[in-house]
């Protein structure tokens, strides 16, 4: 199943954000997340973990290297729903995340979907990778 998302506009910039539903022990939440092919792993805001009922520092402790430096995050396996498909996604939550966007990185999100960035029309196409 294919699903198209329009880029999110902020000022003169456009960002490839998509909607993903995260399912936690206490609640579920549809969250906008930035598709980032440069990121090895997904990194989300800690407030989301709190809302879902996930204890942030209960996950596997990992450091993430960015351009500026390292940040500490905790890796969790979170049930996620996209395009009616439910799967477990590796998502780290970090209290040190400086950016407002949640980041969907390659492991393991990119394994499951074919992702097309259409910069000209500012659209992103997500389809199942069979």
């Amino acid at each position, binding site marked *: 199943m294919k699903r198209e998302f329009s880029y999110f*506009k902020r000022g003169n910039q456009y960002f490839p954000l998509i909607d993903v539903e995260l399912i936690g022990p206490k609640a579920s939440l*549809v969250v*906008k997340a930035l598709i980032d092919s*440069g990121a090895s792993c997904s990194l989300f805001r800690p407030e989301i973990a709190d809302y879902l009922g996930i204890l942030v520092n209960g996950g596997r402790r990992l450091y993430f290297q960015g351009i500026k430096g390292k940040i500490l995050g905790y890796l969790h396996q979170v049930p996620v729903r996209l395009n009616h498909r439910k799967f477990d996604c590796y998502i780290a939550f970090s209290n040190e995340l400086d*950016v407002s*966007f949640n980041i969907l990185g390659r492991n393991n999100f990119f394994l499951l979907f074919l992702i097309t960035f259409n910069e000209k029309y500012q659209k992103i196409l997500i389809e199942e990778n069979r």
Partner: protein
Amino acid sequence: MKKLEISPRKSKRNIYLNRLAGEWVALSNGKTIAHGGTLKKLMKKVKKFKGNQKPSVMLIPKKTEGNYII
């Protein structure tokens, strides 16, 4: 060589979202249905919303967040 045309869509919504920089917002069908200083405050407001789809939430980047190289 054909010139690349870029025509940014300027809408009132974009300006409105910019005013909510640093706040959590809930969006449904491209419209802002609620906003709040924290995700918990936002979700209290969202629970009152009756729509066909679950709204999606995000933290609007602060004005100090500039160009990203993530």
